[in-house]
């Protein structure tokens, strides 16, 4: 049962990754560990015209994703030690004293949220900047966004403001985990599947 959520306006995210780095700064994360990742979705066909010009039907947009603190969290279910757990307020946290670094949550999460810290041998992930939230401040990523496309708040509030849409191509079916992630769809998203669009910046979002 999650009570807080993120909102991401994919129609206006530039992909600048200020959110990713402000998060890394807040959490002191070395390169290779990304609590927040920005996925670049691109699909297109290019054709040369009879005039010798170029035509394209490109669709491109970005998805900024941290941890969605799902209402039905696959990671919590999978964790053998209960290190990964839901707080009463719905935030999904990792107890570093219990984690054995088996990385099973990494497999179980359809969003790539849990990150393995090699040096410490345990998993880490976005905690909604719980300390900030308890102080009444937004998470570091949200207040960093130069385009103001990220929001944080109680789920009910986000739904009221933006509607209950929790997916955009190619995010997994939200019925799997009920993510507390609300999305404004990029206008091109409806063509993305037909264009066989895919995430093309793998080296930027995975090790």
């Amino acid at each position: 049962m999650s009570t807080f959520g993120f909102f991401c306006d994919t129609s206006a995210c530039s992909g600048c990754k200020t959110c990713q780095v402000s998060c890394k700064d807040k959490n002191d994360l070395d390169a290779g560990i990304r609590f927040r990742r920005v996925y670049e979705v691109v699909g297109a066909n290019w054709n040369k015209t009879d005039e010798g010009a170029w035509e394209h039907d490109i669709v491109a947009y970005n998805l900024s994703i941290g941890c969605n603190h799902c209402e039905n969290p696959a990671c919590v279910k999978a964790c053998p030690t209960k290190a990964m757990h839901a707080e009463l307020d719905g935030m999904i946290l990792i107890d570093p004293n219990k984690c054995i670094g088996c990385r099973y949550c990494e497999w179980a999460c359809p969003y790539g949220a849990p990150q393995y810290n090699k040096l410490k041998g345990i998993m880490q992930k976005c905690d909604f900047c719980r300390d900030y939230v308890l102080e009444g401040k937004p998470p570091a990523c949200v207040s960093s966004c130069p385009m103001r496309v990220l929001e944080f708040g109680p789920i009910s509030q986000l739904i009221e403001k933006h509607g209950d849409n929790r997916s955009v191509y190619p995010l997994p079916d939200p019925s799997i985990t009920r993510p507390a992630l609300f999305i404004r769809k990029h206008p091109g998203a409806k063509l993305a599947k037909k264009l066989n669009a895919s995430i093309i910046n793998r080296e930027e979002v995975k090790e």
Partner: protein
Amino acid sequence: MKSSEWPLVIFSLAIQLSAGIMVIYDLFILFPMYRSRVAFPSKYHWILLIALGAALVGVIFSFLHLGNPTNAPRSLSNIGTSWLSREITGVLIYSALLMGTTILHFVMPSAGRSLKWLVDLTALTGVILIFIMSKIYMIPARPAWNSVFTPLGFYMAAIVMGASLLLLFQINHGSWASQKSLAILTISIPVIQLAILPIYMSWLGHPDFAGGKGLAILLHNHLIAFYLRLVLYLLAIAFGFWAFFTIRSDTTQNRLLFAPALLAWASILAAQIVDRLLFYTQNISPEGF
């Protein structure tokens, strides 16, 4: 082949080898003897020791997989929802049963019927354990794993590794009939695996399932391993046939069986290692998350 999953490859194969040995031992060696009321075969102590050794190797490598093994005992604390927790519990129970069985074998070889029940129980635990192991991988976030192919693959690996190994160890002891049946298993499992492969691949490549990405990874990034596995299967089948036709009712000729049985076992083990490495390359979120 580069893989960060070597500890898991060894862990899962070792546990499956151990369980496979126990199942084959139970069904194809103990069961016929039991029915024919032959005295309990003390000469098969070694089989149990090998099964136990494999299980222990598995347990050790499961630790190597962990980032923070000092907390390992905590992994038993979420049996309620975590298949991984269940697996670790299962491995411990299985290993304990196997150890008990082995000790009894050595200490009370005359225990007879009760020992048989203990072996039955251990083998059954092994069968359940393999199912639990496969459930770990059957998660929506990893669609290329989330199918019946995963338990099927694990069970076939267990059976063929157990059968081929016992064929080798039975050279001087086994009956003509059991040798023949183990050889048939050694041949038929790779044949089935080969037969299933196209079905599996078309499923992997189907856009509605693994988004086609699984197949692409297999054929683009790991083509050499893919072919290597095919060759190893074919070799295993060939050596299996060689072994099959070498088996004589005259047990004095059994030494002829050694070479083909050893080659069959070696190629099967190699095939399963490559197979398992390829299995872990399917650790993909098809969308790329």
